[in-house]
């Protein structure tokens, strides 16, 4: 695993809903094996940027590259194929409520692999065990706690062994302990599997705990202010808004 290769590159990306521009002029590079944080105040469009990265919202300008391959301006078949290389964990979990835990994890495997039912079952159980949900195979998402749902969502995002994992506000609505356990899980997966992680969050503890690269978005100017290691940004960012955010206003 080489640490220096750029994995995701955003080039002059503008994201908008209709004529309402959310973010423009985004330029950042996520390197292979990075834990990349998309941060910024509430309502600055962090989740929207993620929707652009995972293929849910087409940028009105610019292009996103995965390993130097353009992501949007390609034939649909190629676009779909690229999407299969990453897993996404949504803010509200987005678990399929009519399926059990194991079925949630198994569905992508059923659709995209030629594995036998027995093998798929085994893999699903293993992924559940990885996130600490061994024995919860037959529970429906609404039968388990909020923290467990989040971890189940991580397990599902990992089902196809993706190269990149996206997390939208992973710790939102979790108590400090569960949120820390989730952070540790993210760190472990990153170190043991070498998966590149992109995390949308505004939790400072998470940002410093797990992040080693980031982009800082601003709601007022609707563009990025800076990009880099959050710990370095906290101490050395030139823009006071970034330092203020990263120190909770204690400049």
């Amino acid at each position, binding site marked *: 695993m080489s640490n220096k290769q750029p994995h995701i590159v955003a080039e002059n990306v503008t994201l908008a809903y209709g004529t309402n521009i959310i973010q423009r002029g985004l330029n950042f590079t996520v390197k292979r094996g990075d834990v990349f944080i998309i941060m910024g105040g509430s309502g600055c469009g962090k989740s929207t940027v993620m929707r652009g990265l995972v293929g849910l919202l087409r940028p009105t300008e610019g292009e996103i590259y995965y390993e130097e391959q353009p992501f949007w301006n390609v034939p649909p078949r190629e676009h779909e194929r690229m*999407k*299969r290389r990453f897993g996404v964990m949504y803010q509200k979990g*987005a678990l399929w409520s009519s399926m059990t835990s194991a079925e949630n994890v198994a569905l992508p495997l059923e659709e995209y692999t030629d594995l036998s039912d027995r093998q798929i079952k085994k893999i699903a159980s293993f992924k559940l065990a990885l996130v600490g949900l061994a024995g919860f195979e037959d529970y429906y998402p609404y039968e388990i706690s909020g923290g467990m749902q989040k971890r189940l969502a991580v397990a599902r995002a990992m089902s196809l062994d993706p190269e990149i994992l996206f997390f939208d506000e992973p710790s939102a609505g979790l108590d400090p302990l569960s949120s820390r356990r989730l952070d540790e899980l993210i760190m472990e997966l990153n170190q043991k599997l070498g998966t590149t992680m992109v995390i949308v969050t505004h939790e400072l503890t998470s940002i410093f705990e797990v992040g080693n690269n980031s982009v800082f978005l601003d709601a007022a100017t609707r563009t990025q202010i800076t990009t880099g290691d959050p710990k370095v940004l906290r101490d050395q960012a030139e823009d006071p808004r970034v330092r203020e955010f990263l120190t909770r206003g204690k400049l």
Partner: protein
Amino acid sequence: MKRIQADPKTGNETMTIEQYTTEPTPPGVEYTSTASGVLNIRLSGNWTLNESIPASEEIFRKISHAKTVRDIKFETSALGAWDTVFLTLIKDIIDYCRDNRLKVDQKGLPEGVRGLLNLADTVPERSKEDLSTVEKESILEEIGRDTVEFLHQTGILVTFIGKVFLTVGRFLIGKARVRRTELVFNIQEAGVRGVPIVSLLTFLVGVILAYVAAAQLTKFGAKILVANLVGVAMAREMAPMITAVIMAGRTGGAYAAQLGTMTVNEEIDAFRTLGLPPMEMLVLPRVLALTLMMPFLVVYANLMGNLGGAVVAIFRLDIGATEYFTALSQAITWRDFLEGLIKSFVYGWLVAISGCLKGIYSGRSAGAVGTSTTAAVVMSLVLIVSSSAVLTAFFDTLWGM
């Protein structure tokens, strides 16, 4: 008010005098103005939600009467309890003074009041222009906007129907897969589970038709024709339509609600990012299930409707069972039956498409799911009845040739 409290550990009794619960004193305002143009507003008593508070206009009037005033000061040493009522009043005064270019000195206010006023001021009020970009429209603009919106909606509908056709086509040539569990579940929901309600309603429709027919036909002494009327009406029109209406409420509404909730929960996004098209995963099994089950339900509905007719004929019109069913079997032709089956197929398809369309394009809130469920049922009903009119005219011409 005095309160005596015993410490549970030491047993010592402590007496506290609560500052804000002194004897109720009504709020009072006094004004003193100085020669140097300072108006001193002295506020006393309790300013709480329970008191009758002087209107802010009254205070404004006092301020505007004092013509030479340039500064406003507050004096609150005799102020008792205060809450939001007091804050809003002070904020009113401050806003009024700002609009009239008077200087307000907030030093005389209690520290808590100043702190809260500061807090309310930290985030600037969003200007009205930001919130409503649309000015009041003229009727022409409104018509134009509605027309564009209608065309847009029609475009979405046509695209969706096209996509459903393509997906079903791809399924038929074996290129699109359908999840077996999902299909079986939906067939059970739309088919087997619908049988009781379809039985009840079509039986009753048969009864009603028989009564209506009997009232007219007995006048001509042709009451045996009740069998013809009930039989033909059920086969051609009523069985498919009543079944479709039931399915619109029961299954079409459920489809919209299910898919709408899945949209709200980002479950549909989750399918999309995994490269699993919602068309194949969710819409295809539902459309297939309902379209396939409708003809079966309609055959059954025919049975029940004619039974209903027979019950009236036998027990109210004194027609023998054999006589009735012989007349019935001579009255219905395979054409009537085929017409009904084709209609049922079309209705099932329309109901499934309306439900799925409204569900997939639902807004992302609980209210929006409700709206899209209603819209799905209404759209189904409109499509059922209008397509029924077209199809009936079509078959009439076809059989006439």
